[in-house]
């Protein structure tokens, strides 16, 4: 088991390195394929109408004139040990982990990006709790009474949930509860540590609209998993012991039915932590997703690279946690 964990962590690190190399290659090669010269890249760090000398200086300071693999190596080195940049009058120290400076506002990428993380985590975790509880409950009840009115109704709603995009449900919720009946107006992100109540109040609409999409999916998954599990032989054995049906469902059925859900949940959560692009946009939340959208529309390569790596990091970590959880839940995985 210990060897397994070590191996998994090692694999995760390798995976992150690969992701960084690929994104690095894509984002630094693409502009050149599009015809942008290194001069133009360097020019983005200087004010308007830069002199050729200034460009050349910045270029060499940033290492843009070096071969790509040297640039990648420098990028990695900066990540772990920081770097010094000289594109202005004074040298700027880029702290560990150094993702470089933005092309647009010339700020360090990392601190700006990390300041967005609490918003995204609040959004993702809150929505995840909501959709897990509602989705799994609905799925279980539907599975226990297949073809009942509840089943048909909830599966109908679930279908709608899967098909309706967040920018529709989110906008609808905002219109209804912020403008039509202003129960929840002036939605501004408040840090949990400052005021938990306001934090929850102002996030409730984004949570609901995001959770609606996912709980629909989870309800369908849970229903399918539960229907399959309840026809297993060991469920019959549990009933043959004379266990009460509630115990059969919860202790024997649900535990097996939920195991595959863990895998999907890990992936979904990982993806969301890398930024819930649309939801953050709809509710004007300054999260990682909005940061990414901004970076892309600005063509701000260092930021894009940073946010891609952050997203990859969350996905890799979530998957690692899921696999370890899996081993915890299923002794067959743990003991083989």
């Amino acid at each position, binding site marked *: 088991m210990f060897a397994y964990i070590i191996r998994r962590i090692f694999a995760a690190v390798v995976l992150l390195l690969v992701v960084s190399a690929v994104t690095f290659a894509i984002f630094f090669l693409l502009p050149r394929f599009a015809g942008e010269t290194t001069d133009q890249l360097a020019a983005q760090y200087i004010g308007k109408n830069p002199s050729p000398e200034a460009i050349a200086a910045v270029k060499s300071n940033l290492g843009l004139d070096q071969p790509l693999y040297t640039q990648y190596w420098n990028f990695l080195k900066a990540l772990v040990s920081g770097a010094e940049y000289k594109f202005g009058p004074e040298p700027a120290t880029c702290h560990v982990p150094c993702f470089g400076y933005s092309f647009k506002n010339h700020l360090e990428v990392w601190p700006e990006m990390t300041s967005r993380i609490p918003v995204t985590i609040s959004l993702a975790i809150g929505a995840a709790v909501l959709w897990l509880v509602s989705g799994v409950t609905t799925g279980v009840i539907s599975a226990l009474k297949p073809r009942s009115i509840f089943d048909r109704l909830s599966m109908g709603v679930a279908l709608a949930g899967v098909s309706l995009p967040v920018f529709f449900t989110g906008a609808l919720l905002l219109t209804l509860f912020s403008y039509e009946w202003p129960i929840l107006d002036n939605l501004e992100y408040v840090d949990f540590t400052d005021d938990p109540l306001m934090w929850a109040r102002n996030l409730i609409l984004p949570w609901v609209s995001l959770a609606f999409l996912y709980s629909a999916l989870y309800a369908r998954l849970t229903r399918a998993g539960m229907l399959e599990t309840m026809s*297993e*032989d*060991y469920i*019959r*054995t*549990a*009933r*043959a*012991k*004379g*266990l*009460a049906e509630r115990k059969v469902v919860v202790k*024997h059925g649900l*535990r*097996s039915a939920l195991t595959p859900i863990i895998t999907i949940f890990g992936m979904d959560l990982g993806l969301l932590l890398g930024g819930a692009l649309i939801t953050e946009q709809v509710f004007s939340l300054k999260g990682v997703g909005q940061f990414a959208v901004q970076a892309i529309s600005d063509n701000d390569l260092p930021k894009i690279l940073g946010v891609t790596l952050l997203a990859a990091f969350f996905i890799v970590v979530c998957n690692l946690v899921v696999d370890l959880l899996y081993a915890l*839940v*299923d*002794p*067959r995985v743990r*003991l083989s």
Partner: protein
Amino acid sequence: MTDLNKTAADAVQDAPRNPAPAGDPFLSVRDLRVHFDTDDGLVRSVDGVSFDLHKGRTLGIVGESGSGKSVTSLAIMGLHRSKRAGITGEIRLDGEDLIAAGPDRVRQLRGRELAMIFQDPLTAMHPYYTVGQQIVEAYRVHHPQASKKQARARAVEMLDRVGIPQPDRRVDDYPHQFSGGMRQRAMIAMALVNDPSLLIADEPTTALDVTVQAQILDLIRDLQAEFGSAVIIITHDLGVVAELADDILVMYGGKCIERGPAETLFDAPEHPYTWGLLGSMPRLDRELQERLVPVKGTPPSLINVPSGCAFHPRCPYADLTGGRSSSELPVLTEAAPGHHAACHLPVAERHRIFAEEIAPRL
């Protein structure tokens, strides 16, 4: 080897091993019907089955896939939950009708008075709980006052009783860490943890190897002798019933077509289907036959059971009934003491055919 067996068998022929007991039967099934309403039509899985079983005795229910043998056992256990299953008739356990009793009452009896072991012990045990946890759970449902420690001690005791080595250590193993034979032993321990009066074993050895099968059959026999419970063993294997059963019930197309004491049923089977079963299986205890004699055709669909005798399309002697076999449902009638068969052929005719055509081949 074969000759030796025959002489030994002849020597004990006159001593019935387990005489049929008097008094009220412990389990009495009357006209049991289990019908399922499916999209394709009404499936008559069990269609009028009756039998009695006394404590301390073993009933073997034999049949091929789709004969209704497993459906019968699940009906006795009250494990048909689908609303689409229509169950009628009487299942009296110690005088109490289980079909009329509410589901809660049947649940109380399940696991305490009625216990069951299943075909595949790997899928029949929950993969996430240790063997011990599963046995403890079975014990504590019906002994809520027992502490966890007592229940665990009981689980270890039962594992020891069914022959698991180092039970105090193996009790904490998961099912996948057991071998197939040990898993089935653990299943038996779980079924017997509450000293049930009726044990139903549904194909208990089909998933096991022969040498393990021999161990398990031996174990079931020993445990029954020790606890004196009634046992129903359900199988497709005539060899397995011959090992265990005192009485045998042969099912075909959802109906009981022959029922009688094990010795007479094997010595002088009455129904052409039983003849067919015996004739189609290769046997190690007989001279090698040049050719097996299969039953022609295939088992019937339970949605479209053939009219009259369900076996008539496959029966080589259907022509001898003057057309009755395809038009009239045969009823179980006593052909010899305690031995019933549902066949239109006159008893004398059956005995003649068996003596002249069937017996020499077996």
